């Protein structure tokens, strides 16, 4: 605690003759601005101006940009359509329609997962709310649309792709490297009975799966899946 300071005394009420003369004050002002100019010219790297879009601001790894839906090793979405992100969203911009997944370990999956990027306020509450490590954010802030419909991003634009991460990088996420959090186990590594036809069912429903050799792939062969696990 301390006192009260009267700042009126800091600036004398009457200006001195030289100050009222104005010319010396102009020169003093010019000295300040010239110093900035010379310094900026001497060291261009110190210039605070960012020449966007050629040059971009280096955002931190916590930047809250476009969302991505994380995928399991087999390419399916980690999302189990529990609606918790939709409930936590203060802008009510997430629309989910849940479907029953043929694979028991996955239980549910989102048939529709839409984020209206025009409504989204990029608060990161969905990331905080997700219990399955399924939704992260990236440092991608360049989203431009020509229509309102285009601003509604569905699964195909939200699914994580290596290219997007390479260009923009991860942003706000539930845990960061080195903070001691163990991510939840990948359900695609859990054993399933062979021949339950889940891949076919998924293809029928239009869920894109990476092309693999026919036959008992790692998905349906628990022993192999366990071996290939990192």
């Amino acid at each position, binding site marked *: 605690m301390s006192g009260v300071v009267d700042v009126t005394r800091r*600036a004398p009420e009457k200006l001195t003759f030289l100050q009222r003369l104005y010319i010396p004050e102009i020169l003093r002002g010019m000295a300040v601005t010239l110093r900035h100019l010379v310094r900026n010219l001497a060291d261009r790297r110190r210039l605070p101006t960012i020449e966007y879009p050629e040059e971009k601001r280096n955002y*931190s790894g916590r930047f809250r940009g476009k969302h991505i839906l994380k995928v399991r090793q087999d390419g399916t979405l980690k999302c189990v359509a529990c609606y918790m992100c939709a409930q936590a969203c203060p802008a009510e911009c997430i629309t989910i329609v849940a479907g029953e997944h043929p694979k028991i370990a996955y239980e549910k999956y989102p048939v529709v997962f839409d984020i209206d990027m025009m409504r989204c306020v990029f608060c990161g*509450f969905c990331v905080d709310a997700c219990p399955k490590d399924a939704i992260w954010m990236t440092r991608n802030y360049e989203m431009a649309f020509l229509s309102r419909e285009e601003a509604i991003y569905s699964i195909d634009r939200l699914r994580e792709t290596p290219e997007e991460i390479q260009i923009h990088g991860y942003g706000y996420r539930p845990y960061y490297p080195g903070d001691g959090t163990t991510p939840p186990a990948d359900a695609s590594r859990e054993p399933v009975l062979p021949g339950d036809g889940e891949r076919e069912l998924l293809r029928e429903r239009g869920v894109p799966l990476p092309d693999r050799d026919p036959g008992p792939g790692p998905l349906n062969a628990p022993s192999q899946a366990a071996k290939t696990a990192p």
Partner: protein
Amino acid sequence: MTVAEAPVLSGPAEKLAARLAGSPLSGRASVAERDLPTVEVEPADWPETARFLRDDPECRYDLFLDLFGVDNLKRRGQRTRFEAIAHLHSLSRGERVRVRIPLPDPEKPSIPTVTGVYPAADWFEREMYDMYGFDVPGHPNLHRLLCHDAFVGHALRKDYAPGQRWFYAEEDFRMPDWARETDERAGHFETQTISIGPSHPATHGIIHIIARLDGERIVRAETMIGYLHRCFEKMSETHHWNGVIPYTDRLNYVSAMINGVGYVRTVEKMLGIEIPERGRLVRTILSEFSRIMDHCVCIGANLVDIGALTNFTYLYQNRENIYDLIEACCGARLTVSYVRVGGLAIDVPDDFVPRCRKLLDSIPGFLDDVEKLVTNNRIVRNRLAGTGVVSREQAIAWGLTGPMLRASGVPYDVRRARPYDFYDKFDWDVPIATTGDNFGRYLVRMEEMRQSLKIIRQALEIFPARGPVNSDDWHVVLPPKDAVYHDMESLIYHFKLVMEGIRVPVGERYEWIEGANGELGFHAISIGRGGPYRLRVRPPCFPSMAAFEKIIVGGTVSDAVATLGTLNIIAGELDR
């Protein structure tokens, strides 16, 4: 309940009850002890009570802070459907009181005006009339304030259907009565009524001023606001306690962090939880940085308005640098959403302290440059000194707080008057100016930035290197992600918190902090749901803007532009 049979009271409430018992109001006003001493009066007795509370030598509640309505339609145990709540503060005694005025008639609620006692009540009463439809007999200019004139219904009533749309056409525009009347000197070619704004570069947001000029001088003016009204208070009633936080960022968007801190403090007080020291220090440090940003924007923009462009770049450089720090902490520059009820969204990054120190080193240089360019500059002096003068008495009567009040010579700062977090442990000064003019406000803001730097420096000294930032109460704070992923019980807590929200005990509370441009208060009412039943914001620049039309009378239009800049109007907070 009368004073005679009041339950056991203590401290200020007891003194107030005794004082009221011996007054002409005896038997008509009752006192209860809540988070604040609460006086309850009938609407007919309200102006008399207000006068007593202001003039009585042992009360002296001279600063009128807030007046707002509450609709109790869906709230149990309330006597009347509508009530009005006022908050008054005594500058000399440092105490405050709440006045509850239950309005008995649910069909035609009516509350007499107190503008004769507290001129500051003017806009608050208009807002109440607009949002709740309370009739205010005796009010000099009872028109809608935030909603437009073609609006039908009263938006904050609980039975108002929120999906309705009311379109506003040009012919709905309401000219003030005095502007429509012909001036007695209308034949005089120099008398004219002009419209400044709503989209004018000097209005800092969208504000509409109707002014009558006699030559260059403004003889009468009226301000119209509400162009940026986004139903903050209505929206918060439909959200969870935590879900309101992103909305608070958009109140005073120049210092978003402070709004969030003010809001979560209210909820935390209702829950009765404490935040670890580290968490509170992060809030303090970033709030003070936000205050610096706010003052930088205010001074920078004000100087641009009066023609000094260079300072803007120096001051905004500080803001850029502070934004970088805030972005590294929470992932967004402007709309931070960093605080949560019970702590913070995420701990600060490892290099937080060095980054803060770097900022502490860089900011004073820019401030020095601005002072060199501005403080003894003759043009700036001519534009700012002696214009927009608010005397000490006027500042109090108009309910001003923050730098506006301090520039008029009243050393009232919430951080000093009612220290929260660690402000009582730090060594810092409250800057005041005695002139009350635009230049005084500039000087106060410049010094406040330096004091904020001083506070941050001391906060960094005691900043614990590691430790929790969040409360460990899992009924309030989301459990750590590691536990959610691997532990069933934590997942259940997580689920209950996200899906149902925090269970805040039934009750109401007003908490206030020092916002960047004055006292920022949140009055929350909980009925035990996951979200607020009613959330009232006391916006700091609302009374300053209400006073603007009085301050500028007698000055020129160019003085009005300079004055508007030093008021530091943030339309997001003004219109909510």
